[in-house]
């Protein structure tokens, strides 16, 4: 009995190793072939925030779980901040990772905004993740993420 168990374990490990190898290769190939393609939103984010690494948290991105019409998807961003002269949110950038052009909007706040909160409506081409990145006055960068299922896409057509 123990022999049998051993064999299945080895088999599974071999399978997993092989699978992960293929997955790694698959992930590498499109990157090499088309560097801008898959990571367009990451390029856009880099342009907006430079080399800063966003930390998950503080940013609440409000979006419907399922958007029936991708042409107009209501969204809200709220950032946890006291919004005083010494500690406030400077900007929030919103990216739609699956859109042909990932930039959605940049909201610029000041301490006179009172609340780091804004709402608008966006177009989503397909089911995807939406990311909001907040730049604080002290240089820290926070990030929030939401995935949205889109029934009818809202780009071009």
């Amino acid at each position, binding site marked *: 009995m123990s022999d049998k168990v051993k064999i299945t374990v080895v088999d599974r490990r071999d399978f997993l190793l092989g699978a992960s190898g293929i997955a790694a290769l698959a992930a590498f190939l499109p990157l090499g072939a088309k560097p801008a393609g898959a990571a367009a939103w990451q390029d856009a984010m880099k342009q907006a925030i430079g080399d800063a690494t966003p930390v998950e948290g503080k940013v609440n991105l409000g979006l419907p779980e399922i958007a029936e019409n991708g042409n107009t998807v209501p969204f809200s961003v709220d950032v946890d901040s006291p919004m005083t002269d010494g500690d406030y949110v400077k900007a929030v950038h919103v990216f739609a990772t699956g859109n042909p052009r990932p930039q959605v909007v*940049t909201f610029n706040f000041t301490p*006179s905004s009172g609340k780091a909160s804004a709402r608008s*409506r966006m177009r989503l081409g397909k089911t995807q993740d939406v990311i909001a990145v907040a730049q604080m006055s002290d240089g820290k960068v926070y990030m929030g993420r939401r995935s949205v299922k889109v029934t009818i896409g809202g780009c071009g057509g």
Partner: protein
Amino acid sequence: MAKPRVKAPKKAKAGEVVQIKTLISHKMETGLRKDKKTGKKIPKKIIESFVAKYAGKEVFSANLATAISANPYIAFYVKVDGPGDLEMTWKEDTGKTWTAKKSIAVG
């Protein structure tokens, strides 16, 4: 074509944070759509920026991209420290601008 609409309270308490809702009718043409008859791409034409000033000071602004829906709706907050005028400007990528003004009293 584009006419801005703004919903703001007429009166607020000193120090109160109030919500302002704005809407401007605009197609927000992405530049990705094709004219169905000619097959040619319809050139991009969007509202690219929105700026709100209260009592002469900038309080909020937004840079819009093509992924913002037609008839852009923007809602934001303003801290009312004293009475003043809320002045808002929308700018199209052609350079054309639209403005709206709302006065907020304190009491």
